Every structure is written in structure tokens, then in C-alpha cells.
């Protein structure tokens, strides 16, 4: 029996990709596979986690570990995937990326992850502290 992890939008969702994910899950379960779904936000899936954030990627990684196959709908660029998930995916024998149907919204991109924010801050980009400090400076006579 194959253990398959499907990552993607899952019902109930406004994202049309949710229907495609559900159709695949039905097909896999009917074929006798053990299927676990991980959606980016809470849904009918038993797990959820935003792969672009460290905490979310860690949750997805926990589900992915030990899988024989991962199918990822609407996967973002590799650079936008936080490292715990990148490491977990590297151990899976078969990882497939599938685009959502036409009109599907993009999966969350990296600007929400704290790893990405940290890299931006190190490069001198805006942070909460810097923004507040700038405002205080501007208010001073």
C-alpha cells in the first residue's frame, strides 16, 4: 500500500483547485492508497500549514516524512518554501508538482515567511522596528 501526501487547496474552499485536489484524493483512495491531505489553510484536510512560513512548513514536513509519494498542487518556487519542508521533501522517493486549473490563484509566495523576512531584514529592508524608528525620526523637530 502506498502512502501518498497531497498538498493543495482542499474543500471547503473558494479556490477552484480544491475540486481538482478532491478528485485526485477520491481516485487515490478508491485505488487503495493511504492518502493524507495537507492544505495551506484549515479545511477538510486533517493537517494544514502554509509552506511559505516556518511553522506551516514544519507542519507540512511532519505529514510528508515517510511518504512514498507527494503530489503538490500549485507549488511555489523552491526559494519560497521554508527549509524544514525542503529537507523533508528531499527524502520522498516521488514528488510531483501539478499546476491548478486555469484561474487558480497562486499558492502563497515567500513574502509571508519569517525566513524570507529575516533575509530581507539582513539585507537592510524594512522591518517593524525600522519602520517605527523612521516614523519617530520624522516626527522629531
Amino acid at each position: 500500500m502506498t502512502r501518498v501526501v497531497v498538498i493543495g487547496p482542499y474543500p471547503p474552499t473558494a479556490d477552484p483547485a480544491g475540486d481538482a485536489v478532491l478528485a485526485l484524493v477520491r481516485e487515490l483512495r478508491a485505488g487503495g492508497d493511504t492518502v493524507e491531505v495537507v492544505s495551506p489553510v484549515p479545511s477538510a484536510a486533517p493537517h494544514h500549514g502554509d509552506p511559505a512560513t516556518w511553522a506551516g512548513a514544519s507542519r507540512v514536513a511532519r505529514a510528508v516524512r515517510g511518504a512514498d509519494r507527494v503530489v503538490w498542487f500549485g507549488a511555489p518556487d523552491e526559494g519560497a518554501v521554508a527549509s524544514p519542508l525542503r529537507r523533508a521533501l528531499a527524502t520522498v522517493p516521488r514528488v510531483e508538482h501539478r499546476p491548478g486549473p486555469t484561474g487558480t490563484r497562486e499558492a502563497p509566495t515567500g513574502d509571508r515567511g519569517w525566513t524570507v523576512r529575516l533575509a530581507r531584514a539582513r539585507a537592510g529592508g524594512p522591518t517593524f522596528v525600522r519602520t517605527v524608528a523612521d516614523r519617530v525620526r520624522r516626527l522629531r523637530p
Partner: protein
Amino acid sequence: MASPPRAGRLGFVPVRFGDDLVGGAEMLMREMADGLAARGWAVDVLTGCTRDHFREVNHYPPGESVRPSGARVVRFPSVASMHRADRVLGNRALAAGTQLDTDAQYRWCNDDVRVPGLFDHLLDHAHEYRALVFGPYLYWTTVAGSMVAPERSVLVPCLHDEPTAHLRLFDREFRDARGVWFLSEPEAAFARSRFPFLADAAVIGSGVDVPAGADPERFRARHGIRGPFALYAGRREKGKGFGRLLDDFVDAVGLEHLDVTLVVAGPGAVTIPDRARAHVVDVGLLDVLDRDDAMAAASAVIQPSPYESFSRTMMEAWLAGASVIANRASAVSAWHCERAGAGSTYSGADELGRALRAALEPGAREDGVRGRDYVLREYTWPAVLDRVEVLLDGWLPVGSA
């Protein structure tokens, strides 16, 4: 009429299920499932472990059990977020009349109590059921579950004109289900206007058990209540019109100079405002026998809720022979009063006062008799279950889906 064949398994999918749950929708699903099981149907109740949506998300243990009726109950673990922020903020926005965009609607829905194991069970086993009955319309179990096998899904929406009913999120279940069972004509009329693409629909009503007998003096003695009183029985919540009732009642007895108490019964603690304390007696949660005694003892039973899809309380009051005074803002309550030729409706304290005065008149009991006749004619369980079986046979004949 020959009974249709009772072949095939029926699945009932309420968000919560238990003999200790108070609420019209919960009781309807429970009694319908038990009633059909007692008639020989194979019935499964597929539900979560929740008793209270916010406080007791996993109150009941997961697993299987069999009810005295023969219905099998299968519970799956319920899941809820720690903060419930999307749910709480969404509820506040809806109450304030703010629109939720599509994403916010789905976040609000998915921040309800979810039951992923139930969803998986439906994915694997929906084809084994002749019909899957979901309700009420607004819970996650109905939104998500009815998507799995819409061709064999029947909604019992318990719908009324409230802010949540206007969310686009619900369009899919009302459009794609095999059919929708309504509890009253006003509910069906509202659904047809809100969902022009509505699936096949029928009004089945709701059954109410006829009490064997009631003893008004037993209730008075047990709770130390003297003199005439009006009764409120149900959840003491803002949405049920409870807070407004307390204000209106105090104003009404003041305006009409009435010597009448308001007895309030229902689950949970309740805070009575200072100005109402002299007029209100809280007797807490009543068991069925005590409730029937209370209704028989009451001069009037008040239904203040503006949001009703059926109003079981009115039926129970009429079965006990009590007069009913209902909030006219509920089209369903007003419809029952008109059809029954019994009860009265009010809007505001002055009309409530006049209705209370009329209910205290010696001839008021005749009104309750007309109401009782109406309930016995329309809403006994045998009558409702006959309608359900005819619809199952018509919409979902054996081997159809």
C-alpha cells in the same frame, strides 16, 4: 397508502448529536433518525464529538454506539482552532451588517468546528448510503459533507432570514443537493428568493412528541411559583430574542399594570438585568416532563425569536393547551398563528402587554385548544415520517444514485 420499500442505508449528518442537547435542529435530526430507524430503516448518525461549539468541542468520545431505536451513531474527532479569530471576527462583522468577501467567508466557515475524519468517511462510504441527510445549512459538516456526494445528499437547512443566510458560500449546497426538506412554507419561500437555482424542494414540517399528560400543580409546587405566569423556554441567547424579551416584558407589565411573572427555562447560566429581577424567575434547564408541566401551568408561552424555521416551542406549548404569544418579526411564527387560528403576535412592549392581558382572560384556554388541534393535524411524527418516506422513494429510489 402503501409504505415505500425501506431498503438502503440512511446517513444523518448533524454537527452535534446527543440526548442532552437542547435545540430545535438538534432534536429534529435526532428524532427523525430514531423515528426512521424504528420504522425499520438502517440508519447511521455520522457526527463529531462536539456538545458546545466554543466550550466543549470534544465532549463526547469518538467511536460507535447503537441507540435504543437501532440507529448506529459513529462519532469522529472534532477539530477547532485555538483562537477562533476568523469565526469570532466574522460573526461580529455579520452582526454589524458588514459584507464578508469570498475568502473571508471560507475562513469563517473553516474556523467552525471541523470534522475531517467524517469527511474522509464520506469519501470512502458515501456510495453505500441511499441518502445522506445534512443540517442545519450553516455548519461546516453540512458545507463540506454535502460536497462529497451531492447526488444523494438531502439538506434540512433550518433556514431563516439572518445575515449568514446571505453568504455566497452556501449557494453550492442549495444548488447541488439532490433535494431540500423545509420545515415550513415561509422557510421555503425565503429559500426560493435567496437561492433562485434551488434544488428540488418540499415542505415536510417537523414532528413533535405528544405528551402523555401534564400536571400544572406539580410544576408550581416544585419551583415554588404562585400566581399567573408567562413562560420562555429555550436557549437564553441574544439571537433567540431573549434579552429583548426581558426589556419588553418589564415595559409590558408596567404599561398594562399586570400582576404576572416571567418564568424563564433553558440551559446555561443567565444574567437577569436589575430592572427585570422583580418580574423574572429562572428555573434553569427542565426535563421533558417538567417542561410539559410548565407549559400546562403557564398562562402564555412567549416565542420572542425573530429567527425561526419551524418553532418547536410553539408546538409544545399548544400541545400543552397554552396560549402562544410570538414575535411577529418571525414570518414562520406568524404563519403558524394564522394557519392554526390560534395564538397572537406582537411587535414591541405595548402589543406584548395587550397580548398578555388577553392570555390572562378566562376564555384564553380555548385558544390553546385550537392550537393543539393544529399540531395534532400537521406535526405528529407519524405524519412527518410518512412525508419523508414518500420523498425518499420519489427522489432517491433504491439503486438510483
